[in-house]
């Protein structure tokens, strides 16, 4: 049975012209695998992730069926949902420095995330926080644990957020642009860490499943098993990651062409003509 199944998911917001669907009837299934979601800015990638965790606030509205481990997510009470978030499903938000509490040090926040789900002596909490920061390649974890969100560099903010979300060992991780501010070598390490957790079957219920939301096509192609391409709230293409370069939809091709190359000689990068397929 699939770990997560989503059927005809819609997210809508009111506008002066009536309700608009920013996620417009998407369906997919997720097993023990790494699923990539790509698409340009505003295509509804983040909204899909947030809808799964029921994090869309009114006036936004979510419709459709979402089942996780056989439970209907829409039917859970807010309390059950809170217990699920973080422990079973966690999400790395796109804007880490906003998602972090500005008046609490980073170390305290990670410890907090750990303590909610496990009861550990203080000594051990410190050690786990340190170890987690270390595993996301933060060089001096002790100093960084004492910093506030605005004192982190862009990339550190992302890594702290990742550490915080991974520490309770979730069953499903939704990572929204987790590495956009990281240089390639750190990025590789962080993705390897996530990958290890995906493969690690030592825990009671097997490894972790991953939904990786990103605009970096080569990266998604490298780290995922399967890819969904989204545009204007719909899935326009779905393929195995290894076949991304064979993608046929003009939108996907447009995205691929816009990536600059290492030995770039083009004077101008091709940009997409949005009017051709975007509804908005």
């Amino acid at each position, binding site marked *: 049975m699939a770990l997560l199944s989503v059927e005809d998911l819609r997210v809508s917001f009111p506008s002066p012209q009536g309700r608009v669907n920013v996620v417009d009837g998407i369906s997919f299934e997720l097993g023990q695998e790494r699923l990539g979601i790509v698409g340009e*800015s505003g295509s509804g990638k983040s909204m899909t992730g947030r809808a799964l965790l029921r994090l869309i606030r009114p006036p936004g509205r979510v419709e459709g069926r979402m089942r996780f481990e056989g439970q209907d997510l829409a039917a859970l009470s807010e309390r059950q949902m809170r217990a699920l978030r973080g422990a079973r499903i966690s999400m790395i938000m796109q804007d880490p420095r906003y998602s972090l509490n500005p008046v609490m040090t980073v170390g305290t926040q990670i410890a907090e995330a750990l303590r909610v789900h496990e009861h550990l002596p203080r000594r051990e909490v410190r050690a786990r926080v340190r170890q987690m920061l270390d595993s996301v390649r933060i060089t001096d974890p002790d100093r960084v644990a004492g910093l506030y969100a605005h004192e982190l560099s862009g990339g550190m903010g992302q890594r702290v957020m990742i550490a915080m979300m991974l520490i309770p060992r979730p069953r499903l991780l939704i990572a929204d642009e987790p590495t956009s*501010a990281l240089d390639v070598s750190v990025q590789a390490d962080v993705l390897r860490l996530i990958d290890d957790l995906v493969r690690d079957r030592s825990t009671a219920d097997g490894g972790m499943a991953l939904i990786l939301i990103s*605009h970096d096509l080569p990266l998604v192609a490298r780290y995922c098993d399967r890819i969904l391409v989204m545009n204007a709230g719909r899935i326009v293409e779905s393929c195995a990651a290894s076949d991304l370069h064979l993608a046929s939809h003009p939108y996907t091709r447009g995205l691929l062409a*816009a990536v600059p*190359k290492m030995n*770039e000689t083009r004077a101008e990068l091709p940009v997409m003509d949005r009017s051709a397929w975007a509804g908005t």
Partner: protein
Amino acid sequence: MTAISLGNVDIGYGGQRVVEAVTFDVARGESFALVGESGSGKSTVLKALVGLAPEWSGKMSVLGRSCVHRPDRDLARRCQMVFQDPYGSLHPRKTVDAVLSEPLTIHGIGGQDARVERALSDVGLDRRFRFRYPHQMSGGQRQRVAIARALMLEPEVMLLDEPTSALDVSVQAEILNLLKRLRAERGLTYLMVTHNLPVVSFLCDRMAVMNKGKIVEIAATKALHDGRFTDPYSKALYAASGGGGSTE
């Protein structure tokens, strides 16, 4: 003639030194990239240049004038910075119009209406966006507003902190094209921070590689074509970015 020059600059926060002995020069009209590990102090160098990271020592000058340890009104007109994060650099309750007229008001420049319209069209936003709030725009559109704000005072030097890292490839392509065009039209000097080597290859002439608060190598962009780096860290960075091998 040099636009930006740093000689043996150390920068710290609260007594902790994060950047050590940085030295480089950027010529007028040149586009210079600062690449390197996350947390190595790239943003810090830019912040020190404009006075937002006041604890520095050494010699720094922009367009022939020595830098001071706080934001400076005169420097503001000649050198502007675009921040790393388009979600954070615009005031959430101000319309695009208010954001763009603010620099003009501060410096007592008239003809605001026309200037704002021109700035918008310069960055490729149509007039519909003029009275929108940040939350009504996508990340790429916000970043263009941030660029337009930096251009309002018609500076000669632009410091760009990862101007495209939070954006998807299609928007990144638009912004990169825009930056290239503006530079060609106005002879701007860019000092750009990025971790994306292909972007450097597209937009820059020279690059400095930073690691752990120090510059380990300064190379011409041509090195990205053939991989001729000398320092082991830059070689590793190049290889990890898919250089040398085939990407696609």
